[in-house]
């Protein structure tokens, strides 16, 4: 397991659950969004959006348009040029930062609603609860761009010569590939020891997706300004959040906090149970059924495979197909007291015939 | 009535070394004033957007008005209560008040950004404004003071109008005009005297109302809804001490016999007045429980304590002591303490207590501001000296006279 993959954000699968296409099929009560009994397309009588509950757009970043030119104000007296927004690049980057909903909040299922459909282009308006278009767009961009660098100036987005940007192939605007770390060591002051986190094992072996842990990342978690370094004051709870989905971070401290930096986790070495080709494909939780507890399973097959019997067990999946002489034997004849690791031939044969020099069939 | 005091021009030598010093200080002040009018207020003052008012308002105006209170308190005592024995001090007190208020008006004008619009309050009214009330009252009161002073002028000139050259023709009509004026004033003077007292009570108290609107910007030791009452009471208490102080200084300066008897009996009134003032001041402090602020040493607590102890409690004790009342020095020192107390109170109210938000520095007057204030005070003393030399104001002991024709009493 000495190779570390380069993860490309592009290939991270985005949720592709089938969505209702008619929004009247939604499980929500109509009155959640509509204030009148029978809303029509022309008069939808919409309430202020209930952010937490509403369903939002679910497309993949691959389907997203590459560039969107934001020039709604080109006809108004304006001090700045329109913005060429690299939409696709941002859509891909958003996977670890809240997804499409980051911007397409309150989007009913079906088509993607344009910003200006909800956000008024005029600042003088009746419903002040929703920011106007200029405010909404700036807030979306500036929230991250300011965090990233406080030197961001207007002209950084409002280029005078946007036509020079290659609209067809916006590859130059993509985020470069992110190199995945092999191992992270956290020096934990409170516990006087270390937590050794094998990052690539979690993605490669334990089957974690990036956004299983990285749900609300912001650019600054990597593009960190020097002045911010001293400012990461996560609470103990926040630090544990990333692990507590799978690990018991409340009671069992010692399983992660060790006195020394620990080697990576190999099931055969650490537990004595070698995950054969069958078990290596099973998710952790498939065997470790008690949430967050990964201990206490015996190596015995019957501990998990309770319904295996002579009739339904195909011995050849272990790699050994029994020959005719042995296929009718009881399990107990060779595997005394359910010891499947050290089969014995003593029950039928004398001492001259013994496992593994003599096999009761053919190894595949 | 063997020995009557008749007010006469003193006709002493005007220039003395002291006068020359005062003159120099006055000229320095006026030079700074010139700079203010040419380059603006910012050029010579330490005022800024956080500290819009400095000593020109705190001392020249607020304290100036309070210390000119001798005019209305003596008028109330001599004319309204009709205590004839105080007759001799009324004219000097009236002159002080007249000069004092004139300089108050001048100081206001100097401090106004648009000094040439000083007449605006006459046509643009704001009945809610304490400052409007003060402005109108002071304007009216200055006029009343001038009217009260007129008989002294007419007395000087009736039968003495001697213009020269082609103006000589005007001598006779002018003389008869003066006589008519004098007769008319003699009959109606009491109207102005009462008006003077009423106006004084109004604006002395409204000066206190001025700072109430500053609200929490003013230190709680001073900020109280009864500020107008405290201002009025302190003004009334400082009136007689001012008269005592001036009279003592004037008699010393001109080598006259001090009027200890009159001043002593004036002094007996000061005690109770100061007592009432102190009672209200302490009572207010306890009702609003601001004594808490005195438990820690800050500029505010020190200034407040000094004001109360040396400006009110100590002189109160002195004015209640018989031996002090009988000694000219004792009276003088006790009066000085009261004056110091009221002066400090006005400075405290307008400058020390005022802690504006967003101030980057605290206010301290500039050289220019101090020079102008000192210059105005010097000018005032010089004018006083000139007036008493030229007009019949100070009473000097003389033989019984039966032809006292005109007096300000209206009685």
């Amino acid at each position: 397991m000495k190779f570390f993959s380069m993860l490309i954000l592009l290939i991270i699968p985005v949720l592709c659950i089938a969505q209702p296409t008619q929004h009247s099929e939604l499980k929500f009560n109509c009155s959640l969004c509509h204030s009148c009994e029978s809303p029509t397309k022309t008069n939808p009588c919409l309430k202020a959006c209930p952010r937490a509950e509403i369903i939002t757009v679910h497309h993949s970043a691959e389907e997203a348009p590459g560039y969107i030119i934001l020039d709604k104000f080109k006809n108004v007296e304006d001090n700045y040029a329109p913005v060429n927004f690299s939409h696709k690049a941002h859509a891909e980057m958003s996977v670890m930062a809240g997804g499409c909903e980051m911007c397409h909040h309150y989007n009913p299922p079906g088509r993607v609603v344009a910003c200006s459909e909800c956000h008024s282009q005029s600042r003088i308006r009746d419903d002040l609860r929703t920011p106007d278009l200029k405010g909404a767009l700036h807030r979306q961009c500036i929230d991250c761009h300011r965090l990233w660098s406080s030197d961001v100036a207007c002209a950084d987005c409002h280029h005078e010569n946007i036509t020079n940007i290659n609209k067809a192939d916006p590859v130059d605007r993509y985020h470069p590939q992110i190199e995945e770390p092999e191992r992270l060591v956290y020096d934990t002051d409170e516990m006087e020891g270390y937590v050794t986190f094998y990052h690539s094992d979690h993605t490669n072996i334990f089957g974690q997706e990036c956004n299983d842990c990285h749900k609300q990342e912001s650019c600054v978690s990597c593009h960190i300004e020097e002045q911010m370094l001293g400012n990461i004051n996560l609470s103990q709870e926040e630090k544990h959040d990333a692990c507590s989905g799978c690990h018991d971070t409340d009671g069992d401290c010692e399983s992660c906090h060790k006195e020394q930096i620990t080697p990576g986790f190999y099931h055969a070495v650490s537990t004595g149970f070698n995950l054969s080709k069958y078990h290596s494909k099973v998710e952790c939780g498939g065997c470790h059924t008690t949430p967050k507890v990964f201990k206490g399973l015996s190596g015995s097959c019957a501990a998990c495979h309770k319904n295996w019997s002579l009739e339904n067990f195909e011995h050849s999946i272990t790699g050994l197909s029994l020959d005719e002489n042995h296929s009718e034997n009881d399990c107990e004849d060779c595997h005394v007291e359910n010891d499947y690791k050290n089969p014995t031939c003593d029950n039928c044969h004398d001492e001259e015939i013994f496992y593994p020099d003599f096999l009761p069939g053919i190894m595949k | 009535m063997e020995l009557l005091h008749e007010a006469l021009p003193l006709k002493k030598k005007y220039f003395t070394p002291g006068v020359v010093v005062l003159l120099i200080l006055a000229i320095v002040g006026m030079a700074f004033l010139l700079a203010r009018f040419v380059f603006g207020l910012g050029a010579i003052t330490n005022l800024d957007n956080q500290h819009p008012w400095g000593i020109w308002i705190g001392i020249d105006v607020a304290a100036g008005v309070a210390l000119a209170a001798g005019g209305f308190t003596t008028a109330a005592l001599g004319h309204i209560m009709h205590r004839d024995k105080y007759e001799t001090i009324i004219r000097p007190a009236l002159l002080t008040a007249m000069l004092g208020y004139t300089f108050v008006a001048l100081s206001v004008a100097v401090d106004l950004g648009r000094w040439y619009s000083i007449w605006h309050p006459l046509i643009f009214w704001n009945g809610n404004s304490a400052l409007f009330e003060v402005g109108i009252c002071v304007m009216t009161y200055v006029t009343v003071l001038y009217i009260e002073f007129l008989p002294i002028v007419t007395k000087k000139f009736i039968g003495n109008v001697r213009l020269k050259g082609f103006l000589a023709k005007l001598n006779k009509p002018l003389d008869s005009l003066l006589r008519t004026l004098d007769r008319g004033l003699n009959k109606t003077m009491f109207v102005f005297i009462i008006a003077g007292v009423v106006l004084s009570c109004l604006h002395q108290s409204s000066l206190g109302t001025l700072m109430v609107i500053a609200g929490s910007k003013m230190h709680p030791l001073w900020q109280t809804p009864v500020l107008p009452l405290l201002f009025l009471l302190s003004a009334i208490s400082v009136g007689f001490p001012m008269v005592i102080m001036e009279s003592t200084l004037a008699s010393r300066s001109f080598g006259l016999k001090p009027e200890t008897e009159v001043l002593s009996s004036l002094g007996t009134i000061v005690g109770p007045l100061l007592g009432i003032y102190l009672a209200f001041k302490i009572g207010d402090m306890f009702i609003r429980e601001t004594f808490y602020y005195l438990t820690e040493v800050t500029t505010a607590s020190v200034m407040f304590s000094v004001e109360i102890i040396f400006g009110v409690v100590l002189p109160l004790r002195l004015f209640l002591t018989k031996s002090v009342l009988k000694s000219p020095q004792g009276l003088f020192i006790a009066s000085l303490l009261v004056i110091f107390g009221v002066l400090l109170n006005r400075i405290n109210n307008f400058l020390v207590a005022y802690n504006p938000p967003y101030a980057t520095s605290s206010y301290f007057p500039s050289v220019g501001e101090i020079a102008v204030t000192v210059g105005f005070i010097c000018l005032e003393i010089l004018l006083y000296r000139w007036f008493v030399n030229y007009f019949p104001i100070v009473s000097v002991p003389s033989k019984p006279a039966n032809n006292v024709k005109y007096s300000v009493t209206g009685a």
Partner: protein
Amino acid sequence: MATQNRRDFLKTVSSIGIVTAGVAATPTKLKADPENILSNERNGVLVDTTVCIGCRRCEWACKKSHDMQPGSIDDYDDKSIFDIKRRPDHTTHTVINAYKGNSISKPIMLKAQCMHCDKPACVSACIVGAFSKKENGSVVWDESKCIGCRYCMVACPFQIPAFDYHKAIEPDIHKCDFCAERKGNGKLPACVEICPVEALTFGNRADLVTLAKDRIKKNPKRYVDHIYGETEVGGTSWMYLSSVDFATLDFPVLSADTAPGVSESIQHGIFAYFIPPIALYALLGGIMYISKQKSNKEEE
């Protein structure tokens, strides 16, 4: 010495009384107070300090719309200006200051300008009534009346009015006028119009209070539960939302009592239809009359 008889005295007193009463009656009929309208339709602005990015475009727009030499808009990107705290003055009617927030890279940006109080201290204080509160919420200063006494600066609880200390002739009082003129032409205030993130929300003041309460309710972690200006000094047209306690942003801690309240009560108490002064006048006249009679008797 007494040359006046009793009848003369009474005659003069009564005639003076009538004149005084007449004078006293007129101001109540004349408009003695400046315009001070508290309309339900008055505008306001809700400043969301959690949204403001400190771009200072409002400063530029304000100067531009008030002919105050705005200079180049790009000069306003200079961040070093946040090293010191500035206040509105004769060169600018609004400023943005940076305050240390919970995050170092994101300071709290705070716009300062006139709050346009519902019960303005300046309107109450001004000796000549040069300030007025308009129906649309603006508190404006009238150059033609001002005498430059700076009492408005003493009275203002937010220390907003600024003075031309450097000018010898026609020094002005400077303060935000809530773009009274632009609003009259159906436009937004210049700062509100230019704000790129709509940190400044313009609207009916009552609607803005509802909006602010709604925002706090929906984002309890983002805001402290306090709308500065909702009740301070009786309410202000400009209101603020913040993620931190307002006292840490140098906002003065003020009660709901209106700034001119106590002062005006005293003022109106002393001058209740001129009754107290007239009563005092009559009282003193009476004392004077009696004491004169007494002294005349003694002399006889």
